[in-house]
């Protein structure tokens, strides 16, 4: 324990559960931490856990968590030697990464150049192709409508029109026939121009009912590159993942080895350093295609941690400090099965629209093989400014069936009162026969749950019993029904507080 820490002080340029996750890793490693916060987060968990905290500005991200200039100034002023960007916000902002490095600090992530190379989908495709990684058949040579029409016919319909600078489904169109193509091209260009200031588009074969399977990769500054196996993230809603697992129930050893080799080849081809993810689409015939590379730590990294036993945040810090990867490929294996559910404040019965409000009470499940990475807990406000994720619930079991049962248990024991959550929806997904069979595609939610509704039966009498007793105790606590109490001759006074009393329960 006398070993010198990798860094002295790290600023975490993020909020919520990922800021908490990184702060805890730093604390274990003996590294001081600086949190940053907006008006909305002054009292939040990540601020209370850090050694120091710096106020950035207003609640909108553009005034706070996206203010790279303020964040860098704060890091310099407080004597930080590194910045961890988390995910989202500035994590894939190449200019910010460059600015941090230029200021003499360490950016915990890849270089700005690597982000630029992978951020342009056209450049990323080209880099992958030359590294021998299969890409979705597509066309990216010229931008003329005539060439694109010919190319679409060659690829075969349906085709996908995508924005080169795209993300989040913006500028994306599925086109079923050549007659539809000219209009789709025009509207995709307009949308891309508006969203990204770049109207370049390209074509891809539209893979029907694919699986989304990604590989966690790592590179270091010594030329080593490894993968830490796959995560299957096919269960999505509104193009966002909600359930992830490792291993994928679909991959066999041969396909897993080929995809892993391709992922490592991709890392080597671009000389990538630090944590990244290679996303693939896998079709029903077990063909796999490079989709994109994420140049950051992923939300769903815990499932990889649980099956490989590697702490990915600590490994990020190690690599950023210029050390060699602490694990070699041959030593990494998948042990057991891990599943993650993202607990959101949202209404699954109403298009998964985000819910805002105060969490009156959260009770998180605790038990062997259950991990909760929470950013929101009792008393916290879920505002419209940020992603409405409450927590990530991750379980580990000896095999998939065990992990599924454990997830079902954990979801039933995760109580969130005060805001509508997707917990009942997740329970139904986990209980679904297709999920239990591992029969997953990115269309799983629309295919099986397009008209999902919360059960609407009347609550059981026990629920009313509990509510009425809580009301009597709360009223008594407020003094509303104090008379009559004396007549009971009751000297001990559970009535003064709802905390810590018991009555009439046989031991």
């Amino acid at each position, binding site marked *: 324990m006398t070993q010198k820490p990798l860094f002295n002080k790290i600023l975490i340029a993020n909020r919520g559960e990922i800021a908490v996750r990184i702060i805890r890793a730093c604390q274990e490693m003996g590294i001081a931490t600086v949190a940053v916060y907006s008006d909305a987060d002054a009292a939040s968990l990540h601020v209370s856990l850090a050694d120091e905290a710096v106020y950035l500005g207003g609640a909108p991200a553009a005034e706070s968590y996206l203010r790279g200039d303020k964040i860098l100034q704060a890091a310099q002023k407080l004597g930080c030697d590194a910045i961890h960007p988390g995910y989202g916000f500035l994590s894939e902002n190449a200019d910010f990464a460059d600015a941090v490095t230029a200021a003499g600090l360490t950016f915990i992530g890849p270089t700005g150049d690597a982000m630029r190379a992978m951020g342009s989908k056209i450049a990323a495709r080209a880099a992958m192709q030359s590294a021998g990684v299969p890409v979705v058949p597509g066309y990216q040579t010229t931008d003329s409508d005539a060439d694109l029409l010919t190319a679409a016919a060659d690829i075969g319909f349906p085709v996908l029109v995508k924005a080169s600078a795209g993300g989040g489904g913006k500028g994306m169109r599925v086109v079923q026939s050549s007659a539809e193509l000219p209009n789709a091209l025009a509207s995709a260009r307009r949308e891309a121009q508006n969203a990204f200031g770049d109207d370049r588009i390209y074509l891809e074969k539209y893979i029907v009912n694919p699986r989304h399977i990604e590989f966690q990769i790592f590179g270091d500054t010594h030329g080593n590159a490894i993968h830490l196996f796959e995560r299957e993230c096919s269960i999505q809603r509104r193009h966002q993942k909600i359930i992830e697992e490792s291993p994928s129930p679909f991959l066999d050893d041969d396909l897993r080895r080929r995809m892993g080799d391709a992922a490592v080849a991709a890392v080597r081809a671009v000389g990538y350093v630090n944590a990244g993810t290679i996303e693939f689409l896998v079709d029903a015939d077990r063909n796999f295609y490079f989709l994109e590379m994420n140049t950051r730590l992923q939300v769903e990294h815990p499932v990889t941690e649980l099956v490989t036993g590697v702490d990915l945040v600590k490994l990020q810090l190690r690599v950023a400090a210029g050390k060699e990867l602490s694990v070699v490929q041959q030593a990494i294996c998948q042990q057991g099965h891990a599943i993650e559910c993202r607990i959101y404040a949202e209404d699954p019965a109403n298009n998964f629209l985000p819910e805002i409000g*105060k969490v*009156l*009470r959260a*009770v998180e499940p605790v038990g062997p093989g259950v991990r909760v990475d929470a950013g929101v807990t009792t008393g916290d406000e879920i505002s419209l400014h940020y992603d409405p994720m409450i927590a990530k619930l991750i379980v580990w079991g000896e095999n998939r069936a065990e992990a599924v049962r454990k997830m079902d248990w954990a*979801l*039933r*024991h995760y*109580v*969130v*009162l*005060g805001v509508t959550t997707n*917990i*009942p929806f997740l*329970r139904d997904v986990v209980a679904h026969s297709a999920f239990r069979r591992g029969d997953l595609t990115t269309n799983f939610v629309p295919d099986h749950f397009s008209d999902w509704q919360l*059960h*609407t039966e*009347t*609550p*059981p*009498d*026990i*629920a*009313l*019993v*509990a*509510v*009425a*007793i*809580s*009301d*009597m*105790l*709360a*009223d008594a606590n407020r003094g509303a*029904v104090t008379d*009559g*109490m004396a*007549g*009971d001759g009751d000297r001990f006074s*559970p009535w003064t507080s*709802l*905390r*810590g*009393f*018991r*009555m*009439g*329960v*046989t031991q």
Partner: protein
Amino acid sequence: MKMDYRYQVGDEIKTVTVERKNGRFLVTVDGETFDVGVASSEPNLFNLEIGGRRWRTVVGHRENKRCVALNGDVWRIERVTETRRQRSGSGGAASGGLGSAMPGQVLDVLVSVGDAVSAGDTLVLLEAMKMELRITAPMDGTVKAVHCAAGETVNRGQLLVEMASDE
């Protein structure tokens, strides 16, 4: 001491009677009485024990809104205020007044003064916010007074019917 609490559950208003006795709670819902032991080790957590069987519940309050988690489900229930205190005197009959949960219109009054009713019987039908609400008897008893008539507009909390129990 004995208290009546009224809750809107779906389109129905249910009265739940709670009586504290010998360190336990006697809770009556729809004519059925539960003998309940309660332990609360943390705020909002109520571990109930009924006939040896245990139930873990978490209850949240925000103004009149109640939510309760039980067996992995979260139920939303609205408390209807203006409860009337009942004092369990020396053998005296309990009585209760039933009010409207929401402003609305009386569709029908199904009882008259002097009628004997059973717990759960519908006394008054209301329409409010395009929903039909049933005001039901919280206990077996007799109708003592009726304060509304079909077609009448009533306010939230307005007294509609008074009852006396059979005890």
